[in-house]
């Protein structure tokens, strides 16, 4: 395998990893965190959709 092909494989591998990270980050941002509010502080079941 010549040097150019090797470098292309490395670059594309890195691009692939970065794509996976990007998708994971987007998925992470979707984890719905229950917002803190007075009701949560009172340990009540706060229904975010009501807010």
């Amino acid at each position: 395998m010549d040097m150019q092909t090797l470098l292309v494989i490395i670059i594309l591998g890195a691009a692939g990893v970065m794509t996976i990270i990007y998708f994971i980050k987007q998925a992470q941002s979707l984890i719905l965190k229950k917002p803190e509010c007075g009701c949560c502080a009172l340990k009540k079941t706060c229904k975010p959709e009501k807010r």
Partner: protein
Amino acid sequence: MKKIQIALAGNPNCGKTTLFNQLTGSRQHVGNWPGVTVEKKTGFFHYKDLEIELIDLPGTYSLSPNSIEEILTRDFIVNDKPDFVLNIVDGTTLERSLYLTTELIDTGTNLVLAVNMMDEVAKKGIEIDFITLENLLGVPVMPINAKKEEGITQLLDKLYESAFKTSTAHSVNYGEDIEASIEAIGCQISCLEELTAHFNPRWLAIRLITGDKYIAQAVRRDKAYATLNQLTAKQIVHLKTLYEDDLDMVMTEKRFGFIMGIVRECVVVRKKDFSRLDTTEKIDNILLNRFISFPIFALILWSTFQLTFSLGGIASGWIEELVNLLSLLVHRLMPVGPLKDLLIGGVLSGVGGILVFLPQILILFLIIAILEDSGYMARVAFIMDRMMHFLGIHGKSFISLFMGIGCNVPGIMAARTLENEEDRKVTVLINPFMSCSARLPIYVLIAGAFFGQNAGTVIFWLYIIGVLVAIMTAKLLKTFFFKGKSVPFVMELPPYRSPTVKSLLIHMWERASQFLSKMGGIILVGSLIIWALSYYPRISQYSGKVTALESQLSTALNDDEKTAYTKLLEDQKSLEQIEYSAIGRLGKAVEPFFKPIGFSWKEGVALITGVVAKEIVVSTLSVLYNTSSDSEIKLKKEMSNSGMNPAAAFSFMIFTLLYIPCLATIAAVLRETRSVRWTLFSIFYGIAIGYALSFISNILGRAILGI
């Protein structure tokens, strides 16, 4: 080094974010209209031996929670208990601004008051006695001018002096009877550890008496607080018998009474600034005129796109030349191989193909920043409110839609300012139809290639189509799914201010840095992947056309013929390679879907990759048509060869505008609606409406142009 946390709180558009940027060196977005900050932002700075964490909270007029960003502000102050709340007030509207101050004092938090916009206070002939104000409120007070960085050091000195001292603020006296009830309920609360761990007893007692819709109801529901609830109910009945009115109203009146007393003591208006009032009023008489306000807005918008296209084109040319030069250098210096192809075909074609649009983006956002900072955008919201209400949509929705022009994600988040949940969801769902800055390069490229001199007008109409589809969709959603009534909209109209060069530069830098970081990230990676998909697998056997061209080349008589045949041979090989590649096969598979709306498989693939980020549509077209940055003429030729014509080009831009939003926007829709159903609706509705309108536009366009 001691660490302290300071929260910035105040009314909308009082200059919190400006001060935040001054203190922390951040470049958060600021604008001359309410509702710019909808999330809390954090920044750090050092002063003397203090390490200060500064939190910029969304603007709010009171701590009675009406919208999400107001709840966010209140909850942060009440639950997170910052060491300090730095309350920024607009010195020109002290009477209104101090209402929040009185509520903040009730929370028991450590408070420092910064009276901002002192230059305007002076211009209006207002004199404020700060020593009396400090004595009457019992909180440190400092006049500042955040925009001009005046009084900032003195403010920090005040903060430093007050650090770790107990609050000596004077609460509003609500009168003997209410105070007695507050004390009785507060005393009961003090015995309940779970409550005192979270709330100041006096503040909670006030919230219980006024019937706060979240906290009071939560306490009422809990059987553990039965005694407290009984006492509260008894006190409320007692007070209602005495006042024969809504207690929230009674207490609000008491607060305003307290504030009016303070203002009378420390504020003197020496002269009315008639000239200033006149200037704003005179401008408003024209810009807000019932008959010409809308045409003026349309004219401003049209001129914006004309300027963006014509001026931006000049600077784009320089970047194009630079990218071409780089391509030439790589071509000459590197030996033949896949890395060379990757650099020219992937990096320079993909990233360079988009980078050339940086000037257009900067010019567009410079003009928008001027409109925003001058106060005109607040007027636009007012103008649009009439139309929005006519369609049953809340006027505030326009602010969210307008922010979507920058990027749909903050636009969707700006919908948090809407108090009505149904209006908020509708606004979130229609925001992806706004032409964000990522779509601009696609418009500039395609409109420039196919519409020449009229490109600016075509782009203007694309923005208008986006707004019209958004409004129609909102009407549809309001008619069939969200039938609740819209609440009235009161938009504060700030006085016209001349934008500062610094603020405009910050706006441009914000946009440029976002664009460039996207270039180095998602667009670079996307371009590399698209290149790899178009480069592999390698074709082993070319068609008869290539063999024929090779034999013609070998028999060429002179250099001119040889050059021409070499070019033809390279183009044919490149075409066959791309068609044989993974992306070519994907394109061929999706071609039947896109064919009816006039697109070839290459545009189809570009639209699919554009789901990750819209700019990638341009990268993909550049890679697939191998146009790098010697752009428009070659692209037009290449696209025309694939069957593209002005009618199909326009429908391609319509489809790009309306089809699936980018990944980050989909995530934002899901986050804000908290509904998979509505997120899927947003995706499929976008595809359906995009497809339908592109189809109609293609047919109409072909009929008109006689193609």
